[in-house]
């Protein structure tokens, strides 16, 4: 178990206060935050290159914040990889083992298997300048893993790569995780990257932890509007909780005079009457109703009539921009291509939409 407790960094331009991260052994933990939020500085503090104002770092039972970087057993792969250009791939890989005076023979089998998994056996005698972007990433990962660190730190591992190489590295990281079980802390500003790789995430915005949790929980149930905005979620509205609906487990939520019936389970905290809150309508859970088709009883609570204002093709799906008839609210609906073709939609067309219970999420 890796624990970072109360890490506080104060700089002229920004401050990071009281950061807490807990990483299970063998887990891939993401520290997600916007660009320029100090993520790299946090990594440098964990490695020991930057002295934080306060904070403790534990690796198992060992407190390491006062140790120099070379004694911490934490490997680091920076965004620019920093492969040593004057050393061959093989020398780069063995650098850590030699620097830590590990017996080469003991590590031989382990390094061999890493080389096989990374598929870089044919590159060992080359210099890094002769490698492609993907090959460099693989070598940098291998170099960091070779001395068997207690924690591996990755700084935006998939940034700046072509989609095909991105996929390749992503698959490779998954293989590494399943075969060698390294404990990884990865910083990134890209939620997609985190979604593809991470088990657990710490969302870090404006120098503070906004949310910690499993990736699906964060994506489906953002704690605050700030988190939702960072995740790039659309359809966010400020409204008011009006009180209990006809059913005990539901509440009424009002936005610009328009009322929604929302299950209490779709609220991040208790549905307190009179409280203002943010509502997130999940675009992929909104249905456009087909004329003449029977409607399920559960859908009848939140049906709205309106017009289609715009349609955008996004490759794998279509975004339909819907405006409620009274002009009180407009939101985006995400429709898979096959459904879009069957619906015969066009800009200006009048449609009825039904909001499933799953389409609501109320935040603090």
């Amino acid at each position, binding site marked *: 178990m890796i624990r970072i407790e109360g890490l506080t960094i104060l700089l002229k331009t920004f401050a990071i206060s009281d950061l807490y991260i807990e990483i299970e052994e063998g887990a891939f933990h993401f520290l997600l935050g916007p660009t320029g939020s100090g993520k790299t500085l946090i990594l*440098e503090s964990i490695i020991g290159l930057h002295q934080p104002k306060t904070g403790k770092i534990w690796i198992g039972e060992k407190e390491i914040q006062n140790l120099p*970087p*070379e004694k911490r057993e934490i*490997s680091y*792969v920076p965004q*620019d990889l920093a492969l040593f250009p004057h050393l061959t791939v093989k020398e780069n890989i063995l*650098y850590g083992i030699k*620097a830590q005076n590990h017996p080469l023979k003991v590590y031989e089998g382990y390094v061999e298997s890493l080389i096989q998994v990374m598929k870089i056996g044919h590159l060992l005698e080359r210099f890094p300048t002769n490698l492609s972007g993907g090959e460099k990433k693989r070598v940098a990962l291998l170099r*960091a893993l070779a001395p068997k660190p207690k924690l591996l730190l990755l700084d935006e591992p998939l940034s700046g790569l072509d989609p095909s190489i991105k996929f390749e590295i992503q698959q490779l990281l998954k293989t590494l995780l399943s075969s060698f079980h390294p404990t990884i802390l990865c910083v990134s500003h890209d939620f997609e990257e985190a979604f593809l790789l991470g088990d657990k995430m710490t969302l870090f915005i404006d120098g503070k932890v906004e949310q910690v949790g499993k990736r699906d929980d964060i994506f489906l149930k953002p704690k605050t509007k700030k988190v939702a905005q960072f995740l790039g979620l659309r359809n966010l509205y400020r409204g008011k909780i009006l009180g209990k609906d006809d059913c005990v487990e539901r509440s009424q939520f009002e936005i610009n005079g328009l009322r929604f019936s929302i299950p209490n389970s779709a609220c991040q905290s208790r549905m307190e009457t009179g409280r203002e809150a943010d509502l997130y309508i999940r675009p992929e859970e909104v249905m456009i109703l087909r004329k003449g088709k029977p409607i399920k009883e559960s859908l009848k609570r939140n049906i709205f009539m309106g017009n289609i204002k715009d349609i955008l093709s996004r490759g794998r799906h279509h975004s339909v921009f819907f405006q409620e008839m009274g002009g009180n609210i407009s939101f985006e609906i995400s429709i898979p291509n096959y459904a879009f073709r069957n619906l015969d939609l066009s800009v200006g067309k009048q449609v009825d939409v039904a909001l499933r219970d799953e389409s609501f999420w109320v935040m603090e």
Partner: protein
Amino acid sequence: MAFRYTMIGAAICIFIFYFGLLASLLFSTNLGGFWEALTHPSTLFSIRLSLMAATLATLFSVLVGLPSAYALSRFQFKGKQIVDTFLEIPIIMSPIALGASFLVFFNTPLGEVIQRKGISFVFEFPGIILAQFATIAGLATRLMKASLDEISPRYEAVARSLGSSSWQAFYRITLPLSFRGLLASVILAWAKAIGEFGATVTLAGAMPRKTETMPIAIFTALASANIEKTIVLILLLIFLGLVALYAVRFTGKMVRYD
């Protein structure tokens, strides 16, 4: 086209200007006199003295300049800007003023103690080294800093995370990566030291067979109208300078990682 010709013309003019100057030296001497002046014991002494003093002064500037350059390149500390500015002192201060400052210093109580109980600098061989060191230390530091600035500190960060101490990361990673630039800095500093005149003559004097370096020998030979010796020494200095410059260019091609 006129623009292109104007620019290239200016470059050719500079070349003709310097080349003409050198050609005039060759025109004013003959082979017999040239050889005699070159093999004269006092000329050979000046050559030996200059090579030795410049090499030692360069060595000392590297010993002090390299750690200073590293500190200025990598660390933030109080007074960094002031230290950085003071590296320019030998550039803004005339060499004679630099030498005169040393003479004044060695007349202070501390200077006198150093002269009496430590090393004697005034009008002595160590004085040549000190004068040349003072002239080139700032320059060497500035040039070495520029070389170190080109190497990302990230390499050292990674090396340290892999288990190297800061010293190990420096000599295993930063030093080899900046080697070309550092070597070029050393060569340029050496070339500047070997041609140094003002500070050396002021502090160490112009004593034949004692403190008479090549530039000082040029001055004294010219003063005594020994044109052959003057030309020999000038051509030798130019030769050494050109070799140094070629060596600097060569360092740019010598290390390739592919």
